[in-house]
C-alpha cells in the first residue's frame, strides 16, 4: 500500500485557501482541520498565488495518457475549492488609501479565481472592543465588491473566546458549503461532457469518469464515486484490446497501472463502508480480469509483480479496515459463488502475493539470463523516468537547457524494466509477506496452512543460504508432518534439513536427518514417491533411501567428508570430533534404532541369576553392522559390553577393566527384523535394577545411545502407526513380548532375626493392655534397629470415633498406643542420643539396641481400648546385619497380630415393687400404649433396684466394689446402700451374672428424675493389674404420687384345716371419695368367708380393709383366690400376679419356731 502516495490512501479532504492577515491563519487552520469532516487549509501570504487555469484542450489532439499522475494531488494540495480572503477591520474602515488597497486586493483575487470557478468567502478581523465600530455600510460595500452572499462574510473576533468559537464554527460551515458547491459544480461540468459523449477517445472517457468520481469523493458522495469508478474500470477494460495509442507493452503497463488505481480507490470506499463481501467479490473479478493478461514474454515478470502487488495491497487494505468488518457481513447475497473462509483473512492474500512475487522472481531471473545484452544498454536506463501520466515512462533528455520527455520504444522499456528488476532483491519481501501470512494463520489456529507458508518461507531462506533460519522453520514443519504422517512432505523437509546441516557443517544433524530419511516408511503404491520434485533429496524411492543411508554411514565412519558446496569447508568425523546420537522415547530416530530390554522374571533373589533379553530393531533400508553394544544399568556394576564376534576387538575400543565382556556371533541389524540377545545378569544389591541405555558403537567415532524401553510399554511412532507392515514380536516368548519390563526387583536378603508378639487373648475395654514384643537374633546381629508399631482398624477407617474430628482427646480415640516400655539397656555405653522413641495414638517408633548373634531384647507395648474394636497391630523391625557398612540396605522383618477388644462387663438394672403392694399410677396407665421405656416409680414408696453385672469376657474377673453415685447431691431420693465395698472380692466367672439389690425411695415428684451412675470397680483375676472402673448410667425415672395403693396381706404359709386371714387394704390418697369394686374368685383349695363381690366407697385420705377368712383344703404350694379390685373413677383395676398369690400349706405345724402369721 506504501506504493501509493499518501493522498491516495486517505479519503480526500476539501482544500481551502487563506489569504491575508497571517496572524490568524494558525488559529483557523487548526480549527478547520479538527472538525468532522475536516477541511485542509493552505495559507497564501499573497493575493496572486493561485495557479492559473490552463487553456482548453484541443479536442482533435489525441490525449497522451489516461490519467495525469499528479492530478489528484494537485487538487488535494494546490487547487483550493474555496478562498477565504481575510481583511483587518482597520483596513476596511480605515482611511481611503487603505480601503483602496483592500478593493485592489479583492479584485486581483477575484480575477485569479474566476477562471477556475473557485468560491470566495470574506473574513473581517476585528477586536472585541472595536466590534461595533466597524460600520455596517463599509461591510456592505465590501460584500458588494466581493460579490458574495451576506452569510459568506464573517466578522471574526479572535480576542474573545465565546465569540471566537462561534466565528470559527460559522467559518467552517461556510467554507464547507462553498467547497461542496465547488466540487459539485466541477463534477457536473465534467459529467455533462460524459453524458453528451463529448469525448474523442476512450482515454478521455476513463479520465472523465475518474475525475467525477474524485469530485464525488471530495463531497463524500461515496455511492456516486463508486459508480463512476466502476464505469471507468469497465471502460478501461474495453481499452485493452482496442487502444493503439502506444507500443503494446507500455500500453498494457499503463492500463494495468490505471486499473490498479481505480480498483484501489473502489476497495478503499467499499472497505471503509464495511462492505467486505463486495470488496472481496470485486477483488476476485479484478484479478480474474487481468490475470490472463500476461503481456509480452520478455517482460512477463512485470505482470507477476503487478499481480503480486494487487494481492499485497488488498491484504493491507483488508487488514487496516475495521476488524469487526472482517466477519461475514449480512449484506445482500452476491450472485457469484460465496467467498470461502480464508478469503476474509488478509493472510490468504499475503500468501498469494508472496507466491506471485516468487513467480516474478523466477521469470525475472529467466528474463535476465535470456537477455545477455542488458549491460550494453549504455546506461541510458538511468535517464528513464516516470512521465506525467500514470503508468507511463519516458526518457528525459537534456536539450539546450531544457528537459524534453521522449517516448520510449517497447524494446527500450523492456531493457529499463529489466535493469530496474535487477536492482531489487525480492527474497526479503517474499519472506516478509510470508511471515505476515504465517503469523496471521498461526493466530487463527490454521496450523497447516501456516506450515505451508512456513515451508515457502524456509525455502526462500534456503535459497538465500540463510541456513540457520531455514533450519529452524524446517524443524518445526518436520514435527508437524511427523505427527500427522505426511510422508512425502516430511521427505521434502528432511531433504532440506539435510542440506541445511551440510551448509552449517553440522555432521551430527546431517547424520540424524539422513538416518531419519532412510528409515522413513516407504510410500509404495503411490506414484507420488517417484515424483522428481521432492526437494533437494530427490524422489522418495528405495534406491534414493539406500543412497542416503550409505552417505550417512560413510560420514559417520569418517570415510567421507561432509562438505558444503557453498562454504568450501569440509568436515570430517575424527576422534577429535566424535558423533554421539541420543535416541529417547520421543526422538524421531526411534525407528532407526529401537532398543527393547526385558527381564525374564519380575523378581530375583540378591545374588541370583536372571535372564535379560535385549532386542534391537532398525528400519534402515540396508543392514547395519554394529561393532560393539554396551548395556547400562542403574547399578553400574551390572553394566556389560557385547562385542561383535565377526570383528576383532580393536585397541581403540573402550573396555574398562573389571567390566564384563560378552561376545555375540554377529551384530547385524536387518530391516524390520529383531536382533535378539539374551544374557545372564546378577545383582547383589536389593532394590530396583533397571536397564537405562543400550549404546551401539559403529566405527571408532560414532555412537548411538538408545534409551532402553520395556516391551510392555512400547508404542509405535506416529509415522509407522498407519503403515501396513509385518508386525513381529521383539522377544520369542510372546508373553514376555507383551509384559516384559526393563526393570527387575531384587529382593532383600532373608532376615535372620525373629520378631515375636506375645498375645494374651483379647483385650478388655478400659484396661491398659500389655503386649510384650521380643526381638531375638538367630543368625544376624542387629545394628541400628528400629521398631515401628502401627495400629490399624481391621475394618478400615480410622481409629477415631466420628466425633474425633472436632475434639482430639483420648476419649474419642477408640484404641490408642499409650506407652512403650523396654528393658533398660544392659550397658551404659548405649548413647542416649541413639534412642528414638516416638509415640502417637496409632503409631510408635522405638530404636532397638545393638544385639549380637543369639541375643534377644524385648519391650512391652501398652495399648488402651476406649471402645470395643478389633485392631490389627503391625510391628516391623528394620536393621542392618553389619555395622561397618552403612551403605548396605536394611533388612526388614514384619509381623502382624489381630487383637480383639471386648467389653469386660455388661451392667443391667431392673426396678421392682415391694411384695404384694401395688400403687395406682395414672401416668403409667396412660403411657402403657406408647413405647415409653421410662420406668415409673411411686412417690414416697419403697422401690427395689436390682443391678446385675454379667462377665462378657473370656477371663474371670474380680469385682471389688459397687456404688451408685447420684449426680447432684440432693434429697430427691434416698438410695440404700449408697456404696458397698465387697469384703471379699467377688469372682465373676465368664458368663456369670452377679446381682446386687438397692432400695430407692423417691422424695420428689418429677417426670425426669436423675438417679445417677452405677460404678463398678473390677480387675482381672489372673494378674495383679490395677483395677478398672466401669460406669453405667441409670436412666431417668418418672416419679408420681400414687392415687390408690392396694396391698395384699396374708401369712407366708398355712396349715391344712387351719383358718387364716387374707386381707386387702385399699388406701385412698386423693381428696375425693373413691368408689371401688371388688370381687373374689372361688378356689377349690380353699374355703373362704367374706364379701364375695361388692362395691364400696373409700373416704378421702383413708384406708379400707377387706378381710377374708380362708381355710386351706389342699397341700403344697397353692394359688390363693384371686381378688380383683377396680376403681370406678379411673377405670383401672388391680390384677395381682400369680406369683404373689402363692401360699404354702403344710400338713402339720412344723417344729420350728414360727412367728404368728400376722407379724410377717
Amino acid at each position: 500500500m506504501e506504493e501509493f502516495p499518501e493522498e491516495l490512501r486517505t479519503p480526500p479532504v476539501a482544500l481551502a485557501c487563506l489569504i491575508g492577515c497571517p496572524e490568524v491563519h494558525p488559529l483557523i487552520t487548526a480549527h478547520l482541520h479538527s472538525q468532522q469532516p475536516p477541511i485542509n487549509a493552505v495559507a497564501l501570504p499573497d493575493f496572486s498565488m493561485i495557479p492559473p487555469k490552463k487553456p482548453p484542450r484541443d479536442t482533435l489532439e489525441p490525449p497522451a495518457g489516461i490519467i495525469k499522475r499528479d492530478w489528484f494531488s494537485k487538487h488535494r494540495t494546490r487547487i483550493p475549492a474555496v478562498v477565504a480572503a481575510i481583511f483587518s477591520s482597520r483596513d476596511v474602515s480605515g482611511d481611503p488609501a487603505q480601503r483602496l488597497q483592500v478593493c485592489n486586493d479583492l479584485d486581483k483575487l477575484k480575477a485569479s479565481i474566476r477562471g477556475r470557478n473557485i468560491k470566495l468567502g470574506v473574513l473581517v478581523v476585528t477586536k472585541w472592543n472595536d466590534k461595533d465600530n466597524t460600520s455596517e455600510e463599509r461591510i456592505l460595500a465590501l460584500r458588494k465588491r466581493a460579490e458574495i452572499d451576506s452569510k459568506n462574510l464573517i466578522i471574526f473576533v479572535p480576542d474573545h473566546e465565546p465569540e471566537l468559537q462561534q466565528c470559527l464554527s460559522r467559518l467552517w460551515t461556510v467554507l464547507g458549503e462553498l467547497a461542496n458547491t465547488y466540487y459539485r459544480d466541477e463534477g457536473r461540468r465534467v459529467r455533462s461532457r460524459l453524458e453528451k459523449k463529448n469525448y474523442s477517445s476512450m482515454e478521455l472517457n476513463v479520465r472523465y469518469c475518474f475525475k467525477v468520481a474524485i469530485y464525488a469523493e471530495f463531497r463524500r458522495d461515496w455511492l456516486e464515486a463508486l459508480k463512476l469508478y466502476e464505469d471507468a474500470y469497465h471502460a478501461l477494460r474495453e481499452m485493452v484490446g482496442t487502444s493503439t495509442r502506444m507500443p503494446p507493452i507500455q500500453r498494457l503497463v499503463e492500463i494495468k497501472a490505471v486499473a490498479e488505481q481505480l480498483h484501489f480507490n473502489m476497495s478503499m470506499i467499499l472497505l471503509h463502508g464495511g462492505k467486505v463481501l463486495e470488496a472481496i467479490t470485486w477483488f476476485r473479478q479484478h484479478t480474474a480480469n487481468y490475470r490472463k493478461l500476461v503481456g509480452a514474454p520478455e517482460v512477463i515478470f512485470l505482470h507477476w509483480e503487478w499481480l503480486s502487488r494487487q494481492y499485497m495491497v488488498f491484504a493491507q487494505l483488508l487488514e487496516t479496515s475495521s476488524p469487526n468488518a472482517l466477519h461475514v457481513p449480512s449484506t445482500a447475497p452476491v450472485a457469484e459463488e460465496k467467498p470461502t473462509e480464508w478469503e476474509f483473512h488478509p493472510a490468504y492474500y499475503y500468501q498469494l502475493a508472496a507466491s506471485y512475487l516468487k513467480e516474478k522472481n523466477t521469470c525475472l531471473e529467466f528474463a535476465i539470463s535470456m537477455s545477455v545484452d542488458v549491460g550494453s544498454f549504455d546506461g541510458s536506463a538511468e535517464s528513464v523516468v516516470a512521465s506525467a501520466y500514470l503508468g507511463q515512462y519516458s526518457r528525459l533528455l537534456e536539450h539546450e537547457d531544457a528537459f524534453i520527455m521522449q517516448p520510449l520504444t517497447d524494446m527500450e522499456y523492456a531493457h529499463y524494466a529489466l535493469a530496474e528488476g535487477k536492482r531489487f532483491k525480492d527474497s526479503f519481501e517474499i519472506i516478509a509477506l510470508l511471515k505476515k501470512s504465517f503469523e496471521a494463520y498461526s493466530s487463527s489456529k490454521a496450523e497447516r496452512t501456516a506450515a505451508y507458508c512456513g515451508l515457502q518461507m524456509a525455502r526462500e531462506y534456503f535459497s538465500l543460504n540463510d541456513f540457520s533460519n531455514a533450519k529452524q522453520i524446517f524443524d518445526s514443519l518436520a514435527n508437524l508432518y511427523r505427527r500427522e504422517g505426511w510422508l512425502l512432505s516430511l521427505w521434502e523437509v528432511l531433504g532440506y534439513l539435510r542440506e541445511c546441516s551440510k551448509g552449517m557443517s553440522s555432521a551430527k544433524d546431517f547424520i540424524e536427518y539422513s538416518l531419519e530419511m532412510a528409515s522413513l516408511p516407504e510410500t509404495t503404491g503411490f506414484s507420488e514417491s517417484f515424483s522428481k520434485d521432492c526437494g533437494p533429496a530427490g524422489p522418495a524411492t528405495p534406491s534414493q533411501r539406500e543412497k542416503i543411508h550409505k552417505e550417512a554411514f560413510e560420514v559417520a565412519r569418517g570415510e567421507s567428508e561432509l562438505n558444503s558446496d557453498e562454504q568450501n569447508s569440509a568436515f570430517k568425523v575424527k576422534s577429535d570430533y566424535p558423533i554421539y546420537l541420543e535416541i529417547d522415547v520421543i526422538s524421531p530416530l526411534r525407528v532407526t534404532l529401537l532398543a527393547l530390554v526385558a527381564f525374564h522374571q519380575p523378581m530375583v533373589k540378591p545374588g541370583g541369576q536372571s535372564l535379560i533379553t535385549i532386542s534391537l530393531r532398525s528400519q534402515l533400508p540396508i543392514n547395519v553392522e554394529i561393532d560393539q553394544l554396551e548395556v547400562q544399568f542403574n547399578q553400574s556394576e551390572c553394566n556389560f559390553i557385547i562385542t561383535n564376534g565377526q570383528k576383532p576387538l580393536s585397541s581403540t575400543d573402550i573396555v574398562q577393566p573389571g567390566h564384563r565382556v560378552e561376545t555375540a556371533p554377529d551384530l547385524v541389524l536387518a530391516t524390520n527384523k529383531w536382533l535378539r540377545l539374551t544374557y545372564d545378569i546378577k545383582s547383589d544389591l536389593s532394590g530396583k535394577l533397571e536397564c537405562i541405555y543400550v549404546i551401539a558403537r559403529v566405527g571408532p567415532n560414532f555412537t548411538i545411545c538408545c534409551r532402553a524401553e520395556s516391551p510392555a510399554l512400547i508404542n509405535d511412532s506416529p509415522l509407522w502407526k498407519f503403515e501396513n507392515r509385518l508386525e513381529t514380536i521383539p522377544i520369542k516368548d510372546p508373553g514376555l513380548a507383551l509384559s516384559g519390563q526393563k526393570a527387575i526387583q531384587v529382593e532383600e536378603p532373608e532376615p535372620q532375626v525373629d520378631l515375636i508378639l506375645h498375645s494374651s487373648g483379647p483385650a478388655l475395654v478400659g484396661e491398659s493392655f500389655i503386649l510384650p514384643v521380643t526381638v531375638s537374633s538367630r543368625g544376624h546381629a542387629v545394628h541400628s534397629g528400629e521398631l515401628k508399631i502401627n495400629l490399624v482398624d481391621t475394618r478400615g477407617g480410622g481409629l477415631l470415633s466420628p466425633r474425633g474430628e472436632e475434639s482430639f482427646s483420648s476419649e474419642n480415640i477408640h484404641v490408642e498406643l499409650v506407652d512403650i516400655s523396654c528393658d533398660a539397656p544392659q550397658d551404659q555405653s548405649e548413647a542416649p542420643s541413639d534412642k528414638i522413641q516416638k509415640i502417637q495414638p496409632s503409631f510408635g517408633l522405638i530404636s532397638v539396641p545393638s544385639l549380637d548373634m543369639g541375643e534377644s531384647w524385648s519391650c512391652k507395648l501398652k495399648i488402651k481400648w476406649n471402645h470395643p474394636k478389633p485392631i490389627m497391630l503391625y510391628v516391623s523391625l528394620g536393621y542392618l546385619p553389619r555395622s561397618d557398612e552403612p551403605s548396605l540396605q536394611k533388612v526388614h522383618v514384619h509381623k502382624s497380630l489381630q487383637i480383639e477388644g471386648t467389653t469386660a462387663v455388661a451392667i443391667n438394672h431392673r426396678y421392682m415393687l415391694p411384695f404384694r403392694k401395688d400403687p395406682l399410677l395414672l401416668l403409667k396407665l396412660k403411657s402403657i400404649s406408647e413405647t415409653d421405656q421410662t420406668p415409673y416409680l411411686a412417690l414416697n414408696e419403697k422401690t427395689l433396684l436390682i443391678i446385675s453385672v454379667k462377665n462378657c469376657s473370656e477371663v474371670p474377673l474380680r469385682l471389688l466394689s459397687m456404688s451408685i453415685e447420684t449426680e447432684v447431691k440432693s434429697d430427691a431420693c434416698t438410695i440404700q446402700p449408697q456404696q458397698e465395698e465387697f469384703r471379699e472380692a467377688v469372682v465373676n466367672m465368664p458368663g456369670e451374672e452377679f446381682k446386687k439389690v438397692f432400695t430407692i425411695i423417691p422424695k420428689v415428684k418429677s417426670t425426669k428424675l436423675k438417679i445417677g451412675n452405677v460404678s463398678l470397680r473390677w480387675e482381672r483375676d489372673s494378674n495383679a493389674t490395677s483395677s478398672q472402673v466401669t460406669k453405667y448410667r441409670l436412666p431417668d425415672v418418672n416419679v408420681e404420687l400414687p392415687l390408690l395403693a392396694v396391698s395384699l396381706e396374708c401369712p407366708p404359709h398355712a396349715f391344712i384345716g387351719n383358718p387364716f386371714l387374707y386381707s386387702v387394704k385399699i388406701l385412698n390418697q386423693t381428696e375425693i371419695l373413691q368408689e371401688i369394686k371388688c370381687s373374689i374368685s372361688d378356689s377349690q383349695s380353699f374355703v373362704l368367708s367374706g364379701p364375695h363381690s361388692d362395691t364400696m366407697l373409700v373416704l378421702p385420705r383413708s384406708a379400707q380393709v377387706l378381710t377374708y377368712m380362708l381355710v386351706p383344703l389342699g397341700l403344697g404350694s397353692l394359688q390363693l383366690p384371686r381378688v380383683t379390685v377396680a376403681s370406678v373413677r379411673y377405670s383401672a383395676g388391680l390384677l395381682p400376679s400369680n406369683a404373689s398369690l402363692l401360699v404354702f400349706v403344710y400338713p402339720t405345724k412344723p417344729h420350728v419356731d414360727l412367728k404368728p402369721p400376722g407379724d410377717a
Partner: protein
Amino acid sequence: MIVCLAVVGHENNPLYIQSFTESDDALKLHHIVHCSLDVIDERVNNPKKSSPAINEAFLGLLYPTENYKVYGYLTNTKVKFILVTTDLDIRDADVRNFFRKFHAAYVDAVSNPFHIPGKKITSRTFGERVSSIVKPFGLNSAS
C-alpha cells in the same frame, strides 16, 4: 479434471492420497490437501448457523486456490475425503455425486477383513475402482 484425491484419517494422517496428473506437482497437491484440513477443522468446529444441513457429509468448496478448487467431505466416522480439481466451473451437485460414489468405494475397501482400521489403504482393487470413478467425472463436467 480431478487432479488429486485423498482420504484423511482421524489424526489428520493421509490414509490414501493419489494424484492424477502427468506433471510433477504431486508434492504441491499434498500441500494443498494438507492445508485444506485447516478449513475442514474450522468448518466442523464452528458450524455456521445459516448452513442448511449440519449433518450433511458434503462440506462444499473448501477454498479456491488460483488454479484448483478443493472440495471436502466428512464421513460419519470422521474420515475426511478431499478432492482437488482443475475445473473452475463445476457444479456442487456433480461433486456431491462423485463423493457419494467414492464413499461407497471407501466403505467397501475398509470392509475388507484384511484391512486394519486406521491403517493406510493399499488395496489395488480400491485404486482401480477409484480411477474408474475419477475418469468419467472429468468427461461429464467437460461436456
